[in-house]
């Protein structure tokens, strides 16, 4: 026998598996519940005459339960398909649930309204372009981040950009009078170019003459000539300036060694005119006359102005022990210095 009150007391006070308790409210998880709350009027288990509206795949159905079928759970709920038209659906509700309690009909109509509204919204939403949601794949992200880091390291960006720009400069892609280069640098480029062409011509013609252009100032290897200058070691300090004397350079064209410091050759010439004869003989005496090529960027000291140059300091002698030295004798007002005197300077 069906007794709603007893069912309700049990559900309310003891246990109902559909009940969800929260601080303020009790909810009912039963699918046929009309309101969603756990109350006496809206519990589908504790009311033998009950009705709900549910939608499936966009179609609204009215479900009704009566006491006559309470003993056959399989056929308990009667399902009636409601019209798609909202107004007609409401009228249908009125017709089916005539003589039913107001609470139930009212809530059913409210449900119809809500469901119709959200169905419309869904349809409308599917028309607009929704952003496509893509899952974050952590492994993938991690892998790609690592690869990106390594690719960046392998790319040598600044070097490549520099290389490319210099290529364009040298290949005259900027035209004849480019706006993005310094005048001097552009001149250097043109000179390099010219030299390159001359070298090519030289090779073609198999000419053995050495090229002694006045423009040959750069780090380019000094070609041909009677003697070759070979660099001994890499560490050349400023102190080496004092190793130079005019004698070595008199015999050869001084302009090659002058490099960027253009005062240098003239200084040499000035200082060495006096010393020419004696030092020339002295230099010739030395069997190994190896001169050091001057470092490319030589700071021009103020001390070069003097005609007589100081003897190399003690440190120079020590360095000389490691590598071939320039054995040079300077002329002073006194007799020329020997190495011992130099050491004891």
């Amino acid at each position, binding site marked *: 026998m069906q007794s709603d009150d007893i069912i309700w007391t049990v559900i309310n006070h003891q246990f109902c598996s559909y009940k969800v308790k929260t601080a303020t409210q009790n909810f009912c998880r039963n699918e046929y519940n009309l309101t969603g709350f756990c109350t006496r009027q809206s519990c589908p288990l504790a009311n033998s005459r009950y009705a709900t509206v549910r939608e499936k795949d966009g179609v609204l159905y009215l479900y009704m339960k009566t006491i006559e079928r309470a003993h056959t759970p399989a056929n308990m709920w009667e399902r009636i398909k409601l019209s*798609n038209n909202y107004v007609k659906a409401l009228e249908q509700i009125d017709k089916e649930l005539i003589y039913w309690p107001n609470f139930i009909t009212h809530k059913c109509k409210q449900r119809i309204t809500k469901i119709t509204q959200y169905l419309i919204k869904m349809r409308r939403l599917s028309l607009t372009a929704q952003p496509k949601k893509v899952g974050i794949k952590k492994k993938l992200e991690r892998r790609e981040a690592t690869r990106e880091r390594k*690719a*960046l390291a392998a790319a040598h960006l600044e070097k*490549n950009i520099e290389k490319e720009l210099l290529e*364009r400069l040298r290949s005259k892609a900027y035209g004849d009078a480019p706006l*993005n280069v310094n005048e001097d*640098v552009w001149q250097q480029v043109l000179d390099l170019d010219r030299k390159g062409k001359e070298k090519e011509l030289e090779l073609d013609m198999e000419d053995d003459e050495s090229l002694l252009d006045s423009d040959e100032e750069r780090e380019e290897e000094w070609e041909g000539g009677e003697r070759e200058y070979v660099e001994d070691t890499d560490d050349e300090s400023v102190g080496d300036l004092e190793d130079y004397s005019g004698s070595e350079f008199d015999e050869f064209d001084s302009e090659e060694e002058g490099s960027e410091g253009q005062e240098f050759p003239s200084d040499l010439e000035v200082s060495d005119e006096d010393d020419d004869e004696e030092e020339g003989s002295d230099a010739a005496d030395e069997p190994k006359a190896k001169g050091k090529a001057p470092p490319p960027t030589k700071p021009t000291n103020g001390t070069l102005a003097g005609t007589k140059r100081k003897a190399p300091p003690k440190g120079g002698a020590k360095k000389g022990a490691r590598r071939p030295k320039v054995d040079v004798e300077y002329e002073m007002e006194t007799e020329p210095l020997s190495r011992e005197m130099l050491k004891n300077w």
Partner: protein
Amino acid sequence: MAREKKIKNAFKRSEEHRKSKREKEQAKLARRMEIKKAEQSKENGAALKAARLAKNIPRTLDNTRQFDATSYLTADPATLRDLEEKAAKASRMINGEEPEESDDSEDGEDEDKDEEMPEAGPSNPRPNASPPQAEEDDDDEDLDEGAEGEEEEQQEVVSDQPLPPPKILITTSASPCKLTYNFVEDLKNVFPGGESFKRPRGKGFEIGRVARWAGKRGYQALIVVNEDHKAPNAITLINLPAGPTAYFKLSSVIPSANIYGHARPSPHSPELILNNFTTLLGHSVGRLFGSLFPPQPQFRGRQVVTLHNQRDFLFFRRHRYMFTSPTSAKLQEIGPRFTLKLRWLRKGLPSVTAPDGRAPAGENDDDVDVSSDEEVDEAALAAREKKDEDEAMAEMVMPDKQKKQKDNGIKVPGLAEDGEYEWKWKPKMEVSRRTFFL
């Protein structure tokens, strides 16, 4: 020779192992010191070193790259050329023509290498005989616009003024965050023709619609910066009016303000360096980027924009350069720094509507004023939403006949969702570490 028996005493065994290891290492060190000494000697040193370096080339991923042979877009260009030649030969033999020897292949090569890149921006009928300097620049690996400067100068004599920079519209997904907004501002001054506009959420502002609208208004490209987790994470680059759409993943975005010692950008058109694009796919991506910049760079500005492809990652850099000597140049970084990775490339524009092809009548196009950065204020948005709700209520009450008539909007054929990708990256493509696609 029998293998040496294992010493059963663990301590003794480990001692012996340590000793032998040390011996081996000492031997190796001795060898290396000898080599070093030999190379430092005066006579043969440099030659020996050069020989050693030439022999021991380190094996890198870039050295041992394997081209992805599944599609002609990502295949090895050398093999493609061979195939072309073979096909040409075969067709000639079939048709019984005289074999024309070198012209065809050479022309093909020239076309591939020299003429592709310079075609940036509005198409200039470029003479096919490029100056010899251009051929020096172009290797198999580099695409650049170096030859452009000269050719443009030649052509400027013909045309009156330099062409205006291509207009580019930059926008974001709806409601961008601060980072994204700043990124867009940075992008605006990267491209000389760049303009941005705030894109509202809602019906009339789908990418496809915006793209067609911008095409009508004369923009050359549309860039949409996508945002996720409060940071820009992707860029959709759409070439207008009907051009290809490319989607890149964006990472490592560093705005210029965060670069220490950054230079200030100037409005000059930059030079372009596009490095390392080898396959056909790479070429098309490179060309896409080239078309965003004005074809004639202003060398006076000394700005250079680099897009360097390394292992499928495109590194974007912007520098101001200065030549300090014929062998060295100095770079000062200007602008934003970011990396891109191509995810997919499609022909055509993105679809405007839902896949079923329905679209409400396009009244919104004329209302939107994009050239000025107008804000769509809250009230307008709220009004629009309320309008939607009212429509919904009205729809419920409407009888059926009226509903059907309302749906009769403009039909715009959109692209099918799944197909029509020229190239799409899938994670399963990354089987081998040595396969790259660009």
